[in-house]
């Protein structure tokens, strides 16, 4: 009897153990991710200023938020930045991947060169590009020294153009990574399909347009998801490159949230802006993750 009971205990223990092992991480995630999200959502409906405060205000913060000029700028900037960043990275990434896939000599050398920027911190990238783009000492000055006196490149100091300098630096940092994703996709394509198409007399152009690029759909999708989520989160690069300036010409939602919450003591509005950011990312990520997890079953 006793022996049977102890065996029973042991098997029950064995059944419970996996859940006990997983439980702490799950609890951490529930609290630090979902609990915190709930708390921030709650704060976005309160009159919090410098510190969290719990006076219910309804949608006031949201209606205030959308009347703030800087938030308008931030959203517009994000739209410009995200769309250019995603499109340019995808074009460069795809082109480099296709080119690298042409039995290139020295591929082993070129690949790490294309990729290394993504190992760097956005702060490092920003520090470097801030300087190159500075008209007084950077590229513009170099061109002048080389005798091209009329060359002008002052975007970083120009309210209307500064956001594009962020696109340049961000593309420099991430396009190699997109290349790697497409290259992995290309290398995964079944050779037989290509040979068959070639035997049918398909030209190179047709081969890529009709067969290879459509087969890369998963890579396109992953690139889009990753780049868009990086774009919405981008904070460091803007801080290091322009600090959100000139004025607040390059403010993005991430910098807006930080400055309203921690320096301007408008925590309620800061929380509301964070909620909008989360919703935007969720709108992209949730369907993607849902599809991934369902397929894996």
């Amino acid at each position: 009897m006793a022996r049977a009971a102890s065996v029973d205990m042991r098997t029950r223990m064995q059944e419970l153990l996996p859940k006990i092992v997983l439980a702490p991480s799950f609890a951490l995630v529930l609290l630090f991710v979902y609990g915190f999200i709930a708390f921030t959502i709650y704060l976005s409906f309160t009159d919090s200023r410098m510190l969290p405060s719990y006076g219910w205000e309804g949608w006031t913060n949201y209606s205030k938020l959308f009347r703030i000029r800087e938030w308008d700028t931030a959203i517009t900037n994000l739209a410009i930045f995200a769309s250019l960043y995603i499109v340019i990275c995808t074009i460069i990434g795809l082109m480099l991947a296709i080119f690298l896939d042409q039995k290139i000599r020295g591929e082993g050398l070129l690949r790490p060169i294309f990729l290394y920027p993504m190992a760097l911190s956005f702060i490092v990238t920003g520090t470097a590009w801030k300087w190159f783009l500075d008209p007084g000492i950077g590229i513009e000055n170099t061109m002048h020294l080389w005798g091209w006196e009329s060359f002008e490149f002052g975007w970083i100091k120009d309210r209307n153009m500064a956001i594009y300098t962020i696109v340049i630096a961000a593309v420099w940092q991430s396009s190699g990574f997109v290349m790697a994703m497409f290259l992995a996709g290309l290398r995964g394509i079944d050779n037989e399909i290509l040979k068959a198409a070639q035997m049918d007399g398909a030209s190179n152009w047709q081969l890529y347009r009709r067969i290879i690029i459509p087969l890369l759909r998963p890579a396109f999708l992953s690139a889009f998801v990753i780049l868009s989520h990086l774009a919405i989160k981008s904070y460091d690069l803007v801080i290091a490159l322009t600090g959100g300036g000139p004025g607040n010409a390059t403010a993005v939602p991430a910098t807006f949230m930080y400055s309203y919450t921690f320096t301007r003591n408008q925590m309620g509005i800061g929380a509301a802006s964070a909620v909008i950011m989360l919703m935007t990312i969720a709108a992209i990520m949730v369907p993607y993750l849902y599809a991934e997890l369902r397929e894996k079953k």
Partner: protein
Amino acid sequence: MSVASQDNAASVGRVGRTFVYLTLLLFALFYLLPFFIMLVNSLKPLGEITGGNMIALPQDWTIAPWLSAWSTAQIGVEPTGLKPYFWNSIRMVVPAVVICTMIGALNGYVLTKWRFRGDTIVFGLMLFSCFIPFQIVLIPMARILGILEISGTTAGLVLVHVVYGIGFATLYYRNYYAAFPTELVRAAQIDGAGFFQIFYRILLPSSGPITVVCVIWLFTNIWNDFLFGASFASGDAAPMTVALNNLVNSSTGVREYNVHFAGAILAALPTLLVYIVAGRFFVRGLMAGSVKG
């Protein structure tokens, strides 16, 4: 994989090939030039930078900017150089990576070999946590760190990075262990091996590749983090990225560009080294995290 696919490439004409090579070289230049310029200018005296061409090699080679960036440059108010902050980052990144990787491996093991009802939901919730904009957790995190009395410390940052690194670590190990034959696990179970025995004896010995991937990924992410560092440890406990940003932005008087560049390279050095040593795995890991299979 890459050898077989060399046949993929359809042959292109000579003009086409020249164009392909030229484009690739041009882009190689585009990616390399910024780093080259940083390096070259970090070895020049300041006068050569403000008065000269940024692409030119130094006439007067000097390592003074590097020494200054490392140990004497003004960071915020203290002339300490980046050295203490470099060690802050090391003290932050090493424990965070070790803890995260261990937790991730166990989680991946449970989620693939000890499946239970609702495990996909658990994993889905963990997975989504990798992609949230961290702005959404900044305010409550600041409070919790305050309550635990670890705000403004390296320990606080370790906690933050562990919490938000678990998702990715779990993702990597789960995807990796999913391909590991479950029959082996079942056979060991029948032989009487327990939960941890199976993990140590059977799964762990073959987890080398994914561990490399996971460690590299976590290391670069945590080392390069700026938002959490700036929010929760901006003083003495600031990590390298925050200190670099202070160095570049807060220097009073003459802007010492050569020192800034030396500092930027110092901040990039650990991740670059990791990348140079194990870059191939790094790429493979990113694939595992983003593209299926």
